[in-house]
C-alpha cells in the first residue's frame, strides 16, 4: 500500500545549519500490517510520520501511495486523501476544547463530501467504548478517555491507514495498555496501523519493527 523510496527531508532554518531529519529512508508497508517505527527523540520518527501522513512533503525521494506518486498531488487532493484514507492519533490528543466528544469525533466528517453524517460519530464513539460520554467535553474526561475520543475521530471516516504518534506518551501504564488493546483489535479487524514510539516494549506488540536513528533506518525485524 505504501512505498517509500530513498526519502530524504532537510529542514533549513534561517540562521542555523540545515538539519537532515530523514536520510534515504526506504520502506514498504502492506495492507493490514501493524508496523512500529521506533527511535529516540530526534531520530526523525515524527518527520517520517508527517511524510507518511501527507502532512509534509519530502525534500527528495518518492512516496507511492497505492502506486501513485504523492508528489504529483495538489494541496486539496492531499487534504482529501488525509480525510478519506488516513486517521491520526497524537500524543497530545489534540481535541478541541469546550467541544463535546461527539463534535470532536465528527470533525473529519465535516470535511468529507458525505451528504449525511448522521449517526457516524456516535457509532465511532461506541466502537471505542465511550457511548455514555458523547456529550462530555475533553476537560470532563480522563486522559485515556480523551485518547479514545481521538481514536474514534481517527476512525470515523473509515480510513485504511491509522497513524499513531506516541499515542500512550501522556498516559499511565494501565491506560496505555487499554489503548494498545484497542489498536490490536483494529489490527485484527484488518486495518493498517503504523505506531511511532520510543518505547521498545510497546513496539513489541507489533508485527514488524523499524528502527530509526539519525534519519536512517538501522534495523528491521519481524516480531515473533
Amino acid at each position, binding site marked *: 500500500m505504501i512505498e517509500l523510496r530513498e526519502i530524504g527531508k532537510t529542514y533549513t532554518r534561517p540562521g542555523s545549519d540545515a538539519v537532515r531529519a530523514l536520510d534515504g529512508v526506504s520502506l514498504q508497508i502492506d495492507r493490514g500490517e501493524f508496523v512500529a517505527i521506533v527511535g529516540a527523540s530526534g531520530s526523525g520518527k515524527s518527520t517520517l510520520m508527517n511524510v507518511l501522513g501527507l502532512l*509534509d512533503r519530502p525534500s527528495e525521494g518518492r512516496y507511492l501511495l497505492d502506486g501513485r506518486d504523492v508528489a504529483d498531488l495538489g494541496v486539496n487532493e492531499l487534504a482529501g486523501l488525509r480525510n478519506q484514507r488516513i486517521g491520526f492519533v497524537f500524543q497530545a490528543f489534540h481535541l478541541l476544547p469546550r467541544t463535546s466528544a461527539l463534535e470532536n469525533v465528527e*470533525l473529519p466528517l465535516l*470535511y468529507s463530501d458525505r451528504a449525511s453524517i448522521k449517526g457516524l460519530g456516535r457509532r465511532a464513539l461506541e466502537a471505542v467504548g465511550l457511548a455514555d460520554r458523547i456529550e462530555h467535553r475533553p476537560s470532563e474526561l480522563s486522559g485515556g478517555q480523551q485518547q479514545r475520543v481521538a481514536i474514534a475521530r481517527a476512525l470515523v*471516516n473509515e480510513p485504511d491507514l491509522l497513524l499513531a504518534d506516541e499515542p500512550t506518551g501522556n498516559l499511565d501504564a494501565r491506560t496505555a495498555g487499554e489503548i494498545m488493546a484497542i489498536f490490536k483489535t483494529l489490527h485484527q479487524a484488518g486495518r493498517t496501523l503504523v505506531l511511532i514510539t520510543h518505547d521498545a516494549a510497546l513496539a513489541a506488540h507489533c508485527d514488524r519493527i523499524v528502527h530509526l536513528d539519525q534519519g536512517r533506518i538501522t534495523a528491521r525485524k519481524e516480531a515473533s
Partner: protein
Amino acid sequence: MRTARLLKQSLRMMTRSKLRSGFMMLGSLVGVAALTLVVSVGQGANRKMLTTVRQIVGGSSILLFSRGGRLVGGPRGEASRLTLDDLAAIAKELPAVEAWDPQQGLMAPVRSAGASDTARVIGQSERWDRVWDRGVSRGELFDAAAVASSARVALIGETVVRELFGHEDPLGAEILVGSVRCRVIGILEPFGTDAHGMDRDDEVVVPISTAMRRLMNVDTIQTAKLLVSDPARIAETTREVRRILRERHGLAPGQPDDFVIRSSLQAQAMVGKVQRVLFLFLPLVAGVLLLGGSAVAASLMLSSVNERVGEIGLRRAVGARPEDIQLQFLLETAVTALGGGVLGLLVGCGAAQMVARKLALGDVFSWNAIFLGLAAAAATGLLAGVVPARRAARLQPADALR
C-alpha cells in the same frame, strides 16, 4: 452540504468563546456607532441649518436692517431711517428685485377674554408669505387692501393659540394686541425655534401699516427682505441697493452706512463652512475611530489565529483544505464585525436621537447612516479578517501540529 456543515460548526465554535467574540464585536461596534452618530446628526444639523437659512435669506435675497436693529424684536435703533419709501424706490429702480417685504415689530402683551401672553408682534406686507416662505396652516392671509387700510386683523402662531385659547378654535376670535383690538384670521404655519433659539410660534403677524400706525406710531421700518430674481446678480444688486440708500439718506462719502445690508451670498459662505465641518471633519474623526476598531478586531483575530495554531493543524490533518480554514476565519470576523456593526447602529441611532432632542434637530433617522454603518461594519470585517485568515490558511499542517 459540506460548506453548510462547516459554516454551522464555525458558528457553534464562536458561541463557545464568547469573550473573544465579544471583544471582536466591540471593535466594529465603536467604529460603526461613531459613524452612524456623526452622519445622522450631521445630516439633521445640515437640514436644520438649511431650513433656517432659507427661511431667513431665502434662495437669493438681500436683507436690510436699520442700524443697530435686529431681525425682529429688540429696541429700535436710534438712527433708524429705513422707510417704506426707501424700499419702494429701490424696487422701482432695480428690476432685479422681484419682491420685497418690510418688517416692523415689538414685544407686546396679547390678550384674549381670559388669558394673556407676551408675544413678538410683527407688521408685514401682504407679500410676506412669498418673501419669507411661510404661510398659514389654517384660515387666510391678509391682502393688499388690509395693508392699505391698516386693518385690525392678525395671524397668530401655535404657541399664542395654546396660551390664549387652549383647545378652543381661535379663528374669528377677537384679541387685544397691545391696545389694538384685532380679529384672528389665520394660524401661522408651525416653525419651531430659530437659529437664535427663539420660539417662532410665539408670534403675531399684523399688516405693516397696522403695526406702524396703530401699535407703534412710527414711520420707519426695522427690516426688509428683497428677493432677487437672478442669483448671479445678487452681488451687483446689493451694491446698487447700498448706493440708492446712501443717496436717499444723504450720506456723504466717508460717512458710515446708517443701515446694515446682508446678502444670501454671505449666508451661503457660512453654510459652506459649517458643511465642511459636518461632512468632512466629523466623518473623518469617525473614520479614524472605525480604523481603530478595525485594528483592534484585526489584532484580536491575529492573536486568535496564533492561539489556535494547534486547532488549525488538527483541522488540516483531518482533511481541511487551506480554503476551508480561510473560510472559517473570514466567517468569524464577518459575523463578529456585522454583529458588532448592527449593535453599533443601534447605539449610534440611539445616541443620535438623544443629541437631536437636545439640539432640537427634529427627526435624524437616516438611511444613509444605516447603509454607511453597515458598509463600515463590512469594511471592518474585511480589514480585520483577510490578513489573519490568509495567515491561518498558509500554515503548514506539520508545523501547526508541532
